[in-house]
């Protein structure tokens, strides 16, 4: 891999089939991992409607998401009145524990002073002192989904977490980045609890977005980490930080509480999972549970069985940065060639990627770069381009609207890594076994007979 191409200059003015999603959307998802919360976009009602539809299509769940409904006049004169009215209305109607406000391109272009508006609101509404409010600056015109998610989590930490005088033995914080599905969070809870530790996840999508069956109608999030538990994060023994984009929130948490942080840049792959398990064992002072030991064995076995089909496979991956890092890392670990890694935004984690081409781009770039590849890994938007160039698509990330259970896919820990290995491995395997299928597809040979055939 001598000639690694990093950030080829893209002079395109028209982003075509965008991979990027906006910051407020990421913020909304983070807020949805807090119990009894209602996120609000400070912008035009369309900002909310689009974000809502996208999340509904992905999770197949009701998505509580409101708007300050800015129109032309309020946009020009200033949005404070709309913001105050929105918060008061939501409070009256839904009594949430937390209202998370994310700004948009509309209010950020105007330059609304959110810190000032927060103070004004508190002064004018002393009766609402009990209501938690988190304001996040998330302009649509900079950064992307991951940045918005990070901004909201940072805001929640700054607003709600309290320093504690005594630590609670066995309590650990987990700052769970947006590359973790609700299913991933559930898996991490299982692993951590296996060591007798008590995790507090921020945010906790496994309790809100994994298919709850409420007893009554609620227009706020149907679960998630409670505000009280967030406040108690200061009493934890350690903070496990999952994903590079959670570093800012981790810093804010450490600054406020002195709880030490341990960063995991990924949890997909054998070595990555080993490190996580070793850390938990050290933190808890307990041996690794038998269940995890068995899971490790089966992962090793899966790697042995599966590596035939991954070796030197050419794969293009286009995902949000931290998920991109986790997936490309895993694929490289399995002996595949990551020919292209495409990220929607520029972030530091891209420097660490093991790929032949790393670029900030869109699905049309993937379509160009993946022409000769064996597989594309991307979200559902990648399906049309993949079909055009005749390359199979493995769906990961968000949005995934053409698959059931998008929120419950697991790719962390020994078990999650094994699942991912099987899913992708099976795509290769079925292509190799099914000669009639692949012989028609522009010259894909069947991998030198690893499936025992002589077709070319």
């Amino acid at each position, binding site marked *: 891999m001598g000639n690694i191409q990093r950030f080829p200059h893209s002079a395109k003015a028209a982003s075509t089939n*965008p991979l990027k999603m906006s910051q407020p959307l990421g913020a909304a998802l983070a807020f949805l991992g807090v119990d009894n919360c209602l996120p609000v976009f400070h912008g035009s009602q369309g900002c909310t409607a689009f974000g809502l539809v996208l999340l509904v299509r992905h999770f197949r769940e009701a998505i509580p998401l409101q708007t300050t409904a800015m129109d032309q006049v309020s946009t020009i004169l200033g949005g404070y009145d709309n913001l105050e009215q929105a918060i008061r209305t939501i409070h009256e109607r839904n009594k949430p524990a937390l209202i998370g406000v994310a700004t948009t391109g509309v209010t950020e272009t105007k330059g609304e002073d959110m810190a000032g508006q927060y103070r004004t609101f508190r002064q004018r509404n002393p009766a609402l002192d009990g209501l938690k409010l988190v304001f996040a600056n998330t302009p649509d*015109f900079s950064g992307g989904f991951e940045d918005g998610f990070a901004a909201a989590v940072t805001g929640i930490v700054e607003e709600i977490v309290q320093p504690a005088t005594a630590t609670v033995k066995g309590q650990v914080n987990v700052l769970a980045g947006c590359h973790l599905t609700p299913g991933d969070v559930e898996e991490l809870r299982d692993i951590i609890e296996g060591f007798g530790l008590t995790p507090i996840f921020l945010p906790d999508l496994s309790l809100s977005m994994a298919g709850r069956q409420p007893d009554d109608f609620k227009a706020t999030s149907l679960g998630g980490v409670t505000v009280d538990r967030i406040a108690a994060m200061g009493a934890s023994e350690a903070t496990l930080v999952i994903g590079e984009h959670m570093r800012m929130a981790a810093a804010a948490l450490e600054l406020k509480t002195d709880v030490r942080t341990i960063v995991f840049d990924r949890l997909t792959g054998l070595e990555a999972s080993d490190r996580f398990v070793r850390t938990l064992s050290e933190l808890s002072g307990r041996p690794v549970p038998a269940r995890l030991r068995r899971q490790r064995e089966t992962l090793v076995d899966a790697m042995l069985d599966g590596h035939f089909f991954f070796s030197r496979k050419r794969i293009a991956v286009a995902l949000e940065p931290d998920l991109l890092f986790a997936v490309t890392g895993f694929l490289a670990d399995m002996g595949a060639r990551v020919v292209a890694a495409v990220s929607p935004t520029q972030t530091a984690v891209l420097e660490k990627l093991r790929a032949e081409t790393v670029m900030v781009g869109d699905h049309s770039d993937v379509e160009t770069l993946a022409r000769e590849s064996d597989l594309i890994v991307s979200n559902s938007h990648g399906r049309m381009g993949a079909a055009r160039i005749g390359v199979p698509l493995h769906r990961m990330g968000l949005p995934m609207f053409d698959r059931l259970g998008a929120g419950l896919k697991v790719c962390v820990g020994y078990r999650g890594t094994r699942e991912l290995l099987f899913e992708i491995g099976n795509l290769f395997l079925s292509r190799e076994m099914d000669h009639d299928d692949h012989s028609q597809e522009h010259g894909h040979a069947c991998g030198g007979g690893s499936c025992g055939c002589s077709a070319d």
Partner: protein
Amino acid sequence: MLREKLQEVFNEPGCATNQAKSDKERKKGCSKALKPGAAAGGCAYDGAMIALQPIADAAHLVHGPIACLGNSWDNRGTKSSGSQLYRTGFTTDLSELDIIHGGEKKLYKAIKEVIQQYDPPAVFVYQTCVPAMIGDDIEAVCKFAAKKLGKPVIPVMAPGFVGSKNLGNKLAGETLLDHVIGTMEPEVTTPTDICIVGEYNLAGELWLVKPLLEEIGIRLLSCISGDARYHEVAQAHRARLTMVVCSQALVNIGRKMQERWGIPYFEGSFYGVSDMSDTLRTMARMLVERGADKALIDRAEGVIAREESRVWRRLAPYKPRFEGKRVLLFTGGVKSWSMVNALEGAGLTIVGTSTKKSTKEDKDRIKKMKGEEFHQWDDLKPRDIYKMLKDSQADILMSGGRSQFIALKAKVPWLDLNQERHTAFAGYDGIVNLCEEIDKTLSNPIWRQVRLPAPWEA
């Protein structure tokens, strides 16, 4: 300029609701003030995109930050029988620097790239809130680009914050009237050429109607904008008759085509047996009035008679299955009401409906049809619907995607009536499809299972 345009669309004389208003009320416009913290629904840009994106061979370029397209592309079920270019999402993805320096140059470059790479017959450029705020003159850029690049480049002036989705529909209509309709001439015309306005070919619905038109001898010259090609829309002014579907959103196109080119229009619907038949009948009659061969009427009656007897025959098996089943309709507007008689004909009982989006006329019509005791709710909150379903006051909720989870979380069957659905409900075959969908979900064995208590519950 946008302000004048807004006044103009608010003052639509072709709109019955508008006609009923006082001068003062009319001036206020027809979009209701949105309540911050309690609003729902799309913006004007969303509405404009819904109305224009079905023009399949055109490129649709969104000038704005990523949210406007990045969060929304690839989410509509409008179908094309040919070019798929409309499904490609193009945006200028404005960054912080673009906002500081202005986005006009980037927009021009983007238009150029799209034309060079994809060679579409036209480019629609959508204005959004942020460039509208910083004063990007996209009309000037489009004009310049059109001249320089030799292709129609059409500015769609409906930034989100001017109003609702419905208003965006109207503004899209104005865009077509200002820039597209009447700019090309068809090779041939016939006395039975028609233009259909406001049909978006969701789930391929137009294709359930078009064969019937062809059989009768009516030529669909132009559809705005389901499965449309740019040149077809540009030639719409040569139609002999316009049909406006889903009345109020795009009635401005029908009325102005009448003003400019003397094309009569009528409002019709493809939903429900009697509405469908009325529509075919009206088409044939109005075309004959404009000089088409009288035989058209007989052919239409022939098709109607055959299709009606066929549809009732096909609906008959559902009748015993639907006996005593109660439907809660939650969409309002015209669409659902034209389905009611077909549903009742198939044996269902409609227990009530929301009338939030309905006009006074609609409400009176419902009252006449259903009697005074029938429930009509103006402002039914999600919580109330949930309660009704939970208390088993209805066996199925038929609504748009927004209320899907109200029903599902109450563990009550639900059927999608709105734009996200995957099954076509238009025309005679569509009604049979609809009943089949209702029957499928009502008779699914999961409902008993999911309502069972868990083993640890008493």
